[in-house]
């Protein structure tokens, strides 16, 4: 099990600093009697791009949702950019301001236009003046290649467009970390690429990213570490080439054979 791989064949040009962005130590979580997360230790450096995979129900979503406190962990420590997540609401909101999240089902606000979706948090959370927020929003809409949709409502866009809006919405808060929870698994196959392209571009720009995804091509292209989870535990982690070509544990082998063969 290698820890923070500094070099990555395809992403070698991407610099990773040695500053810690996210640190999880001995994190445990239960839903009632059910032990979802078991002694998770994970350190994410600034600029690192991590892909988490594993069978359904293994706790991947729960893990990344603990990082912005959409779920509460019961034991262990989670520190994001030097702020520890506790019951302190102020800290939680501070962390959420620095951590963007993209969901499987987009979770755009259907009653607001695309532009208003993007400017809402900057205006109300960061108190950015409206005009400036709109300029920033248009900038990111151009980056995800749909500036012409600014005036539409989310319901009028395709799934791929909605997910790109969701990514742009998070970016408008200039987050230090982006979390992705299966961003392409609710999309029709022909739309997956447009979303992955945006994510790859984002990775190239040096964003710290944690992506729960089964897109192995994406993992090979941008990840500098792939983590395999099963039954609430981190079973194996390695740089992508090693991880895919030379998996160590039997469970990883089984999982990889399953997703590669269907």
């Amino acid at each position, binding site marked *: 099990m290698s820890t923070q791989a500094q070099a990555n064949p395809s992403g070698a040009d991407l610099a990773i600093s040695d500053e810690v962005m996210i640190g999880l130590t001995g994190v445990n979580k239960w839903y009632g009697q059910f032990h979802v997360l078991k002694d998770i230790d994970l350190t994410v450096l600034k600029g690192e791009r991590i892909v988490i995979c594993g069978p359904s129900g293994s706790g991947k979503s729960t893990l990344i949702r603990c990082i*912005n406190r*959409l779920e509460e962990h019961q034991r262990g420590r989670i520190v994001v950019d030097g702020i520890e997540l506790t019951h302190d*609401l102020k800290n939680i*909101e501070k962390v*959420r*301001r620095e*951590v*963007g*999240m993209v*969901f499987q*089902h*987009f*979770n*755009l*606000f*259907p*009653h607001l236009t695309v532009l208003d979706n993007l400017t*809402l*948090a900057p205006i*109300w*959370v960061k108190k950015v003046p409206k005009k400036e927020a709109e300029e920033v929003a248009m900038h990111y809409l151009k980056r995800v290649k749909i500036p012409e949709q600014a005036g539409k*409502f*989310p*319901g*009028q866009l395709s799934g791929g467009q909605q997910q790109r809006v969701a990514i742009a*919405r*998070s970016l408008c*808060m200039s987050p230090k970390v982006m979390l992705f929870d299966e961003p392409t698994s609710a999309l029709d196959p022909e739309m997956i690429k447009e979303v992955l392209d945006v994510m790859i571009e984002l990775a190239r720009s040096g964003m710290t990213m944690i992506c729960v995804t089964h897109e192995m091509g994406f993992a090979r292209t941008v990840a500098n570490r792939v983590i395999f989870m099963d039954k609430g535990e981190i079973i194996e982690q390695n740089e992508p080439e090693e991880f895919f070509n030379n998996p160590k544990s039997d469970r990883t082998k089984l999982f990889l054979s399953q997703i590669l063969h269907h």
Partner: protein
Amino acid sequence: MTDMTDQSIVPGTRPDLPPPVTESGVIGWLRHNLFSSWWDSLLTLSAIYIVYLIVPPFISWAFVNADWQFLPSVISGEKAPEFSDCTSGGACWIFVRARFGQFFYGFYPDAERWRVNLVLVMLVASIYGLLSERIKNKKPIAWFFFAVFPLLAFFLLYGGIGLPVVPTQQWGGFMLTLTLAGIGIVFSLPIGILLALGRRSQLPIVHLLCVLFIEFARGVPLITILFMANVMLPLFLPQGVEFNILLRVLIGVTLFASAYMAEVIRGGLQALPKGQYEGAMAMGLGYWAMMRLIIMPQALRVAIPGIVNNFISLTQDTTLVAIVGLYDFLNIVRAGSRDSNWIGTEIEGYVFCAFVYWIFCFAMSRYSMRIERKLQTGHKR
């Protein structure tokens, strides 16, 4: 069940053919909607017969044979109008004309009625401003309506600072009904929102209090609440403090309506997927910002039909204040037709009342249907 024509073609095999004559046009529509079976035909015919029994006599009573004009002797001031002036056998609308001032203003002094009119003009103008699609910038109107207007209206209606005071005992008629319904509507919505949020709160005390209040208010008839507001509220006040009866009733009506409002809004909240909360929280929005900007706008849209329904019930429920001795619109019309000059005009009074309430409630209902349609075309999930 009826179409035994066109046996030669198996249905569904020739979609290229025009529909048979009996399926289209007026005859087709009639056959399809009114006479599609012997049972439907029977219902249709009975309905037509009932309409025939009721409508023509009503029209001749209310319009054709009705008395509308004052006698010359009344106009010249020789005598007061009375029921016996009506001679044509139809409705005696002279009664409504003669009493109109009282029906509208209650016992509000003649010289001060301009104040009520002014409030009414401001009310209608700002409601028009808020609802009209032609006016784009609604912010100043909203500010006026929700911040300035209530104070101004109170000052004008009640008096003080130079205006003679008109005690609330003299308020009555349509103006009182409008005051009750208006205040009930304006306050029950925000209180209902808070109660609905409280009922879904994670804080056990807040949750418990809200559930207790909502279930209590929904489980007790409004009449009971009005009696209690009348008798019990003074018990909680220091001795000798006079607590206005209109105020007591207003509090009772508003709290009652709030409980129903809370349940309708809770329904709207439940219709929202969890992802909306998570999307908002993940952006760093705090609880109140999330509720105000993301959750409530959507929940209220879902709840519009129920909310307007509550507004309509509330408007109608204001008639119950007669029980604690207030002369609202219905009560004052009833009292008018008991006047010794007007014995025998009860039907006219009730028909007039029903008509006025109907106009108001129907307008609300139509308006809510319009918003619903507009929102449906505006955006979809």
